[in-house]
């Protein structure tokens, strides 16, 4: 008669007890460099949170966040899925050339009509201002031939359809054609969802209707961006370069309520960080005000997402003041801001993934014209 072996039971028991011991001994990790976010810490229970279940949820998130070698386990999952033939993980397609992200549009505003209406209403309310709209297609829109399965959203079709919805007085910039003309060049990071500074320079040149004069300085040669971290996939590395304008004026960058002022748009401490793209302005802020010594008497207001961060440095020689507003974090009265800053030009700069999946611009503009 064969003896029963208890190996699995012993192994399972040991692993469970070991994991309990590790949890008791190891201190909490407060920040994940790889995931670029703060990790949950041990929640404090209250009677209310215990009764309504929120404490239970917080505790589960805490345990998931503090699991030992969390990022390595995420890597293992990615490798297993890739080995099984999957090429699309979460909302990211893995191609030979890089990572392509597609974010599903808001179900209640798939074509951006509500946003277009709010922008048109804003134009109506501020007819004296020169409005421009610069929508940036994502890598998935320019390089759709690299996809193994067609994207849910055809960015080219959506791009031009959206521009048709805008008021004729709003200047629209055909970045889709512009980037398509340069598609053989490095327009997007392979491991990050942003466009490169090279792509931004082409768009800035089109916006300013000027040839730009700059010097390229490589800031980081081992840049692994948001998409790589999201998938725990480290096969792609990018170069992040700074394009320093030769005719840059002197300027002061005021970060508003954050109480910080600098004389450069670059946060060099961030250039070697896991989120090296934050070298531009140190990341995203609700409101930034730049005063320059430029002789141009134009004052620009920019509604933007993070794609604008590497674009805006090209504009410094051409505006005496630039006010930069991120609607996801800004909740004040923009009409008062326009009056106080004596704005003459307005620029909307968004990438398509963000624009069609986020409604904060629509909400801010709608509130301003009520």
């Amino acid at each position: 008669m064969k003896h029963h072996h208890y190996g699995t039971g012993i192994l399972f028991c040991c692993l469970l007890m070991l994991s309990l011991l590790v949890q008791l001994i190891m201190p909490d990790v407060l920040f994940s460099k790889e995931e670029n976010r703060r990790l949950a810490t041990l929640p404090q229970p209250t009677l209310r949170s215990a009764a309504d279940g929120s404490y239970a949820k917080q505790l589960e998130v805490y345990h998931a966040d503090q699991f030992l070698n969390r990022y390595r386990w995420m890597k293992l999952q990615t490798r297993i899925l890739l080995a099984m033939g999957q090429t699309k993980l979460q909302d990211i397609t893995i191609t030979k050339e890089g990572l392509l992200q597609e974010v599903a549009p808001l179900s209640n505003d798939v074509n951006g009509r509500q946003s277009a209406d709010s922008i048109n209403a804003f134009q109506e309310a501020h007819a004296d201002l020169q409005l421009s709209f610069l929508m940036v297609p994502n890598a998935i829109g320019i390089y759709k031939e690299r996809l193994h399965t067609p994207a849910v959203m055809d960015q080219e079709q959506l791009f031009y359809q959206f521009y048709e919805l805008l008021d004729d007085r709003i200047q629209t910039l055909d970045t889709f054609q512009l980037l398509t003309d340069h598609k053989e060049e490095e327009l997007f990071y392979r491991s990050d969802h942003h466009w490169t500074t090279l792509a931004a320079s082409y768009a800035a040149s089109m916006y300013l209707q000027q040839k730009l004069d700059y010097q390229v300085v490589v800031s980081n040669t081992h840049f692994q961006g948001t998409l790589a971290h999201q998938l725990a996939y480290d096969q792609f590395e990018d170069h992040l370069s700074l394009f320093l304008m030769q005719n840059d004026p002197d300027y002061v960058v005021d970060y508003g309520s954050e109480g910080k002022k600098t004389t450069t748009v670059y946060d060099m401490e961030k250039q070697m960080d896991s989120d090296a793209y934050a070298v531009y302005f140190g990341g995203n802020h609700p409101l930034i005000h730049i005063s320059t010594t430029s002789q141009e008497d134009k004052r620009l207001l920019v509604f933007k997402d993070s794609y604008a961060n590497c674009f805006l440095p090209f504009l410094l020689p051409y505006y005496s003041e630039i006010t930069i507003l991120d609607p996801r974090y800004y909740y004040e009265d923009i009409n008062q801001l326009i009056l106080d800053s004596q704005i003459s030009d307005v620029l909307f700069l968004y990438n398509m993934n963000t624009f069609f999946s986020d409604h904060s611009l629509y909400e801010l503009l709608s509130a301003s014209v009520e």
Partner: protein
Amino acid sequence: MSFDTIFFIFTWLPCCLLLYYVLPKRWKLGYLLVVSYLFYAWGNLYRALFLLFLTGLHIQTVKLLDNLSGKSRMVLFVEVLVFDVFALCFFKYYGTILNELFARELLQVNAQLPNAPLGISFYMFSLIGYLIDSYRGQLPAKKNSFQAALYIAFFPKLLMGPICRYQQFVQQLEDLSFQPRLFDTGASRFIIGLAQKVVLANTFARLFQQLQATPLTMLGAWGMTLAFALQLYFDFQGYSQMAIGLSNLLGFTMPENFHYPYLACSIKDFWNRWHITLSHWFRDYVYFPLGGSRVSWQRHILNLMIVWALTGLWHGANLTFLVWGCYYGVLLILEKYIWYPLQQKLPKGCNWAITLCLIMIGWVFFYSSSLSQACQILGSMFGSANVASPLVVSVLGQYAGFLLIGIVCATPLMEALDFLLNMYLNRWYYLLRLAVMFGLLLICIAFLVGNTYQSFLYFAF
């Protein structure tokens, strides 16, 4: 709390097991009861209080039934049974009923009612079974309230079964000593169940969603149905395995809930393999009391339709579930009274293929949100749409590896391989098995941690 979370597996479970095996035997029953209620109260205290109320009501009712006789006994039994059925129907169906009343403008006020307590469909069946067994005089004369309370609330089976019988469970409470072989078996079952849930079921859920988003084609409709069939099987079977495994770790055995249902060669055979404890419950507490098959053929048909309509409704309040249940009722009637001679003549492979096709058709009703959607999908499956599209072929191609593994794991091939290796490898078999279990556990951990990724945080732009 769910079994497939980091917190449950690496914090709750080790603490639970450690204390359970350290405590003296006389405290184990009380400890399991406390732990079970803590498990259920986790995330929502009120549902645990509701369970406590129902358990108290039934324990008290059973005590009274033991002391009553004749009409008063029957009246008490019927009153509590009606209350149970009402409570179950209320929580399961009030949302659907309210929507209908709003739609027909018969109700003006939008009342906010509490969500159905998690697991009510399962533990209510345990309660009703306990009550009926008591009325029938099938329970042991000597009853222990704590044992009865634990039978209802035992956390491994509380939320999703298996639905076990009072007598089967309570007998095991006489000996709560450590059983190494059962513990080892439980560990294996838990790991296998976890893998079925977090690796296979979740993957097929993604495949189902991706195919759902594509324009309907014949291949897409069949692919979607296959994905759903595998998703549902591995989700439920995985959870059942984990529940049985957890019970084993605590020294209890639980009835099996699945036995390779997609190998069934008839619809009757399918329901002897799929959610076995549920079909046995309906058989023992609804079908047999109605007379079963020992009645006229007209009454037998009625009995079958009642049982299967109730089975459909038990799964959900949508009309599609009722149609799904009645669909199986009709098939079973046809099998019994018309097809049986033909089935005997056909080769087994033929019967299997026909049965599988019928099961897939049934799943279309199960996952569709409306009858019109179900008809549209069925139409595509049988030729009303294009045969295929490059998108569907591409999506299925990406999941080919997982589909192959899923189909293999839905058959006894792995069990057969295990048997052969045990026979020919001798002592190396145990090392190999240990390595496989360890590898499987590591894969499960990777998928558990990977699935806790918070995508919105990466939209940091």
